[in-house]
């Protein structure tokens, strides 16, 4: 044994431990902050990070996760936290955290510094395509804006259609004219094609060649064979002409299809112009769906889109993290790893259990669990499950539970949310002019349930407003509509609103209904319905007048030109077919003539032989 050697090994081991002891905390802290900021798209900060290799614990005093959409705000922050991690997976470059206790969890807190994080170019990757949920959010946000400014009172039948049209700038006439110009160019092109095609010239040449062959006067076999060869060439030429003619037909049929598609859009353009005119004139459609959307749509759908944002974030993070899993590569002579059990089938990142406590922005004490957040659910075989809830002394309660399940082929998200017992005193139920009254009393309850399976969404959000008492005093009557609405709502001490968003039976449907829709519909129909209908009829008539006969003219122009071109093609096709028939007949005649000459020669030879031998 070398004493010096033993000392050397001991010193090196000691130095390695010392170095890791001194610098590992700050190194890991900065590495976690960097990687988490990359995933989050905004700064993630950990304060007083501490790693204890002795009892395998990580602690920190504060964690702030900046909101990428507003970097002066945190999406959430936590106070003191302690987590237990497993040692062995770290040797496989896996982070498996068994338990996290997060205290003082707070949502949407303000930041003292800007949480902007510039993602390095080499880390930014490709811009992700907007996903399904983003599409649903967009549609719902658009719905939220619909009917927001609809006016139900002050509707007059004698609206000034001229000034409305001046403001409107109809799009349909311009689009129809543009389609017509496009069609004119196309038809011009086809007329020229048929006029200038060399198919006709080639047919004439073939005709001349055919006429020059006088089958009956051919007396020699050699000449017949030469003619047959020529005619075979002609047959090939005619075949090629037929193919060219068919190509021309396919091309113009394609052009016709495109033209038909453009023409088919005309009705949509006209309908769009009409709808824009109605919207500009602020002429509502008086039905329950429209009324409910005007009353509650904006707030309800905005809330709804906000809830969906969280699910979109979960789905996006899930795919981002899963993409980070290392692929198994077996390079030459690196050997092959055998797996004798699934013990090391760990994901790169797995938090098994989070015990969370904190408070909401509205000061409800919240506590609960989030389990199995991982970078690859296929490996953990567990979905993310969360259940948080809490209440306060004034009987307000909140509960959020759900599951993000990416175990199967299709991602599935289920979220249930309930917030109840909150006071409505001093608030308005709707920003609409139909319900301008403040509430003196009332409590609210929101229940939301969202189920998404890949691109299939089925969801419901319900507002229950109980014990309502409106303050009508500050709002003197402004007409019959207001009077009727006031009478209707004064008798209702409960207003329930339900929004349904689903695409279970086809395209996305966004519906909103409330128990007071019919009261409003009755009130409005008995007052402004006639005025609205008259005004709508005026606008429709004017839109039609402005567009005029453009559509009919375009259709007749299209049909006429199409018929002309088809006729030209038919003529060409007939000539090619005729020529083909002539060539085929000539071929048959020549074959026949060849046989005749051969027979004649045979006969002459036989006669000559007979004469010679004296028969």
């Amino acid at each position: 044994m070398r004493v010096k050697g033993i000392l050397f090994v001991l010193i090196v081991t000691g130095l390695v431990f010392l170095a890791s002891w001194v610098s590992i905390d700050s190194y890991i802290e900065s590495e976690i902050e960097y990687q988490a900021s990359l995933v989050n798209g905004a700064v993630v900060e950990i304060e007083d990070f501490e790693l204890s290799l002795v009892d395998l614990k990580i602690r920190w005093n504060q964690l702030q996760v900046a909101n990428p959409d507003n970097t002066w705000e945190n999406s959430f922050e936590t106070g003191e936290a302690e987590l237990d991690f497993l040692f062995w997976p770290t040797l496989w470059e896996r982070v498996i955290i068994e338990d996290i206790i997060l205290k003082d969890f707070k949502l949407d807190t303000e930041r003292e510094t800007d949480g902007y994080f510039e993602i390095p170019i080499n880390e930014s990757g490709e811009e992700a395509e907007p996903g399904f949920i983003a599409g649903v959010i967009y549609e719902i946000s658009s719905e939220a804006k619909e009917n927001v400014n609809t006016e139900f009172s002050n509707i007059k039948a004698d609206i000034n259609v001229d000034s409305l049209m001046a403001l409107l700038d109809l799009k349909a006439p311009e689009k129809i004219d543009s389609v017509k110009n496009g069609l004119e160019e196309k038809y011009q092109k086809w007329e020229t094609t048929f006029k200038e095609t060399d198919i006709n010239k080639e047919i004439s040449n073939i005709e001349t060649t055919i006429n020059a062959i006088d089958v009956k006067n051919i007396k020699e076999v050699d000449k017949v064979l030469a003619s047959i060869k020529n005619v075979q060439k002609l047959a090939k030429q005619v075949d090629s002409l037929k193919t060219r003619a068919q190509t021309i037909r396919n091309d113009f049929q394609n052009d016709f299809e495109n033209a038909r598609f453009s023409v088919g859009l005309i009705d949509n353009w006209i309908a769009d112009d009409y709808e824009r005119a109605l919207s500009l004139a602020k002429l509502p459609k008086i039905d329950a769906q429209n009324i409910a959307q005007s009353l509650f749509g904006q707030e309800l759908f905005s809330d709804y889109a906000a809830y969906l944002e969280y699910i979109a974030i979960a789905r996006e993070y899930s795919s981002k993290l899963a993409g980070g899993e290392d692929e198994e590569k077996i390079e030459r002579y690196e050997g092959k790893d055998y797996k004798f059990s699934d013990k090391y089938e760990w994901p790169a990142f797995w938090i098994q259990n989070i015990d969370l406590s904190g408070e909401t922005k509205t000061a409800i004490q919240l506590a609960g669990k989030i389990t199995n957040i991982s970078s690859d659910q296929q490996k953990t075989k567990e979905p993310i499950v969360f259940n948080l809830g809490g209440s306060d002394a004034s009987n307000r309660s909140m509960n959020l539970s759900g599951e993000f399940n990416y175990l199967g082929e299709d991602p599935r998200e289920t979220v249930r949310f309930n917030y109840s017992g909150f006071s409505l005193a001093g608030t308005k139920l709707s920003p609409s002019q139909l319900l301008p009254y403040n509430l003196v009393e009332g409590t609210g309850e929101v229940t939301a349930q969202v189920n998404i399976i890949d691109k299939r969404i089925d969801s419901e959000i319900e507002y229950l407003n109980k014990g309502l008492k409106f303050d009508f005093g500050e709002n003197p009557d402004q007409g019959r509509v207001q009077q009727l609405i006031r009478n209707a709502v004064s008798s209702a001490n409960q207003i329930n609103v339900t929004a349904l968003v689903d695409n279970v039976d086809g395209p996305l449907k966004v519906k909103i209904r409330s128990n007071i829709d019919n009261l409003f519909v009755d009130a409005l129909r008995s007052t402004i319905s006639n005025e609205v209908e008259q005004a709508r009829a005026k606008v429709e008539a004017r839109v039609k007048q402005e567009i005029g006969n453009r559509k009919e003219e375009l259709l007749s122009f299209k049909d006429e030109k199409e018929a002309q071109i088809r006729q030209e093609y038919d003529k060409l096709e007939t000539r090619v077919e005729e020529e083909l028939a002539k060539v085929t007949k000539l071929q048959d005649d020549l074959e026949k003539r060849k046989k005749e000459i051969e027979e004649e020669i045979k006969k002459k030879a036989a006669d000559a032989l007979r004469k010679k031998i004296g028969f």
Partner: protein
Amino acid sequence: MLILLKYIAKLLKALASEASPAQIAGGLILGMIIGLTPVLSVHNLLIVVLIIILKVNVGMAILSFLVFSGIAYLADPIFHNFGIWLLEHEGMQATWTAMYDNEFWAITKFYNTVVIGSFLIALALCIPMFPLAQIGVVQYRRHIHERVMKTKAMKWLKGTKLFSVYQAYSRVRS
């Protein structure tokens, strides 16, 4: 470079008469294990520690590592196939599974065909190589050393400036 030269000189000295044949043979087989098996394996850390703390010839261990690394490059397919045979051997499945499920054994990566194949072949080679190396050293000293020292290569090595610098450094140090 100076360190490499130092170990070459030490090796030559050791081969000549200084070290016991067992020390040189020990260096050879430990260097061989590192050379034949994938370098960045956990078991090689243990072998390096053994080279440092045991009185084996470090120069021979380095030389052996270099030579056997080259051999390993060619022999990897054999190690791989032997590893497959071992890891798929029915009678060994319980052992492999128990080792795989134990984290300590798992970090040795003995579940990899090349690691287990090359390690066991290297261990098996130790049995004949150790006595053969000892005999070789004795025979070298008796018959070859003189001739090696007279070769052009050795003369050239001794004539290099670097070697003179090393010799001066050794003298000062001693």
